């Protein structure tokens, strides 16, 4: 198993290089380092010297991908791409184009993101599983049909409407919690309630429907029929047999997204004014801060690959039939 994990980790390296190359090319296809310098310096009448100085300061004074002047391996290493990418692999994100330490910013902003994403995941999981279980318990009745219609309707509503109506109803009409903003410490609690509620509610449609199909798939299996034939009550069949087995796909699905929780929710965070990683990324996109965008893309890819590996491992743990090779 450890050999498998090592191989997967090694396999991640070319993927991360590819990811870096794609972001790099996307950014520099239209945006030359000169343009970046001009934008960051902000002034329309920037002198050529100022641009060169900025490029030298930020390490953009090399060729982009291929250095024809250098010899041997230097042709590939003495380039912006190589110099800027290599540090990322040591998780050293460097400074942003506006001069802030990206690593520090990420560590600071990780917590608000987690403070929303984790409760949304846990509460959402609890609600979705229990609702799905209830629907399956009452399957082929009006409760089942009505619930499925409700779930499809909930799926069909844009996430933006959940946020807007949540802000309007709870925040503005009832004045229960502030509409947006953030605070440190325990004060943060009242700012977090609304985003968490909105996050959970908007996920019910998709989540519950998916879990319902998982349960229904299990309920047609032979072992369930055996359990019923033994004379077990429906409640026990559901909880002791169906739930346990259906949890396998549910939990492995959760494991896959677990690392990505750090990335935060882009839309929710910028709507509610939460200083997490999601809003950090959106701000960086709008300011065209390449260093931050590249760092976030890199982080996102690392976490995604981590999620894939964790999923594989968790499969072997919950299902002994699965062997990693």
């Amino acid at each position, binding site marked *: 198993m450890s050999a498998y994990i090592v191989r997967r980790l090694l396999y991640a390296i070319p993927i991360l290089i*590819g990811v870096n190359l794609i972001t790099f090319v996307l950014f520099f296809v239209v945006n030359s380092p000169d343009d970046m310098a001009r934008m960051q310096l902000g002034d329309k009448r920037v002198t050529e010297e100022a641009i060169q100085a900025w490029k030298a300061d930020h390490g953009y004074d090399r060729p982009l991908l291929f250095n024809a002047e250098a010899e041997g391996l230097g042709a590939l290493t003495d380039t912006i791409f190589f110099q800027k990418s290599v540090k990322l692999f040591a998780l050293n994100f460097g400074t942003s184009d506006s001069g802030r330490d990206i690593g520090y910013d990420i560590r600071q902003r990780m917590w608000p993101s987690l403070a929303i994403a984790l409760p949304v995941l846990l509460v959402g999981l609890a609600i979705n599983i229990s609702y799905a279980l209830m629907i399956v318990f009452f399957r082929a009745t009006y409760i089942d049909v009505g619930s499925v219609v409700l779930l499809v309707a909930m799926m069909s509503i844009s996430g*933006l409407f959940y946020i807007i109506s949540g802000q309007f109803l709870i925040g503005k009409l009832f004045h229960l919690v502030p509409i947006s903003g953030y605070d440190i410490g325990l004060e943060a609690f009242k700012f977090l309630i609304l985003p968490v509620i909105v996050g959970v509610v908007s996920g019910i449609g998709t989540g519950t429907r998916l879990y319902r199909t998982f349960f229904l798939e299990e309920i047609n299996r032979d072992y369930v029929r055996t359990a019923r034939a033994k004379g077990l009550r429906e409640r026990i069949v559901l909880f002791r047999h169906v739930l346990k087995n259906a949890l396998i796909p549910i939990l492995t699905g959760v494991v896959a997204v677990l690392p990505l929780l750090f990335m935060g929710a882009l839309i929710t965070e910028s709507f509610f004014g939460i200083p997490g990683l999601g809003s950090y990324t959106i701000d960086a*996109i709008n300011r065209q801060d390449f260093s931050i965008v590249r760092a*976030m893309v890199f982080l*996102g890819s690392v976490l995604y690959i981590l999620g894939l590996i964790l999923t594989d491992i968790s499969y072997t743990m919950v299902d002994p039939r699965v062997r990693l090779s």
Partner: protein
Amino acid sequence: MPVILTTDALIFLLIAVALGYGVYASQHEHLRAPWRSVARSRVGVAALVVIGFYVLIGVLDSMHFHPRIEPVTTGEAAAPAQTDAERSGPGDAAAAPTEARYSTQVLSVLDVILTGLRERQEKTFSAPFATHLFVKEPIEQPDGSIVRGYPPLEHGGAHLKDPSRRGFDIAVRTVLGAIKGMLVWMALTAGLVWLVAHARGEDFNDGANAIWQGRTEVPWRVLLIALAAMLVLSFVAAELAAGYHILGTDKVGEDVFYQSLKSIRTGLVIGTLTTLVMLPAAVILGIMAGYFRGITDDVIQYLYTTLNSIPGVLLIAAAILMLQVYMTNNADQFASLVERADLRLLFLCIILGVTSWTGLCRLLRGESLKLREQDYVQAASALGVRHGTIITRHILPNVLHIVMITVVLDFSGLVLAEAVLSYVNIGVDPTMNSWGNMINSARLELAREPIVWWSLAAAFVFMFTLVLAANLFADVVRDAFDPRLARVT
């Protein structure tokens, strides 16, 4: 003079592909059977009617042309109406000065149908069915004094001599619209009953009875009820919209109902063209990876894992930013703003496709891996059939159902994604009518007191109807096509 925008061309291509598929499917029993079971489902038929209305509007809105300008004797060419000045570019104002002169403005057939709605602009916000503006403005009284009040609208309810009779007028128009809708419906029903009766070899009355009692195989009754609802709704809306702004007006006084209808095309284009764009890559690469295995498989797997591991929103944002920079640097390449917005829409479809093809590719790879071990594929390759032939004759037909399910399932998600992306300013062009842009601009007005809710509500209703219908339809299609589900039930 007709104009074919890039997305228009692709839409027509898509329609052609759909027709081609329809002809192909009708000749192959294994494809016809699932569609027949879709047609037998009541939910599927009802959803199809709703989607049909949307598609009709979308197609009408995809036929663009330059309107002809009547020759003006006073030298100066007729300036486009102010309402459309923002939408028409600088372009070729001095086109052929001879007999036929065409405006630079690009209109669609839908625009012509909705000319009334398009041209009846107010000054700024007005509520649905309002006769007065939503905001107070200084009004000059007949005696010369100036009072701050709500000025009457220029068009909304302007036909009313006595504003207090508005309720009565609305009721009359509603009834009138409903009657017109029912008349059209009856004509269509009569035609359908005649066709069904003819096909069943019965006379008209028996056919009508069979439909009404739900004895037909295809649930025509459900179809007729859904059709009646949609027709009555459209005719009532049309009748009312002739005299009022039935969904109010927005900040610059544009009719919200018109905006909502125009947004339909954007939603449909995003939902369908994205799939069309990504389909060739996903199908070809997916099948190749599964069929050839080895190094091909490794390369393709590497490709989609890499693309997949980039957070989608970031990839879209980077690509759209790139496009924006390109467009500001090469502004002279675009004849008009419409063309520019259209190109951006197409680009958005492509980049959405790039982020979403990986799922289908992976599914197809897995399925091809299984299929290539089947006896008939083994037999074919033992007989020396070429790879290309095996793929097109044995593999492709057997994965078509997966493609079909994915296409239908992706649609609603893409329509919803458009709204979110437009909110982050990385969606369609801000000048383009879309539900995302409507929500985005309406969001800022929620802070007003009393609130301006109608733009938001309109976008919600139109989007919800389409996505709900698409979701229900997708479920029916999946149930019909997925052999795994068929075995369970």
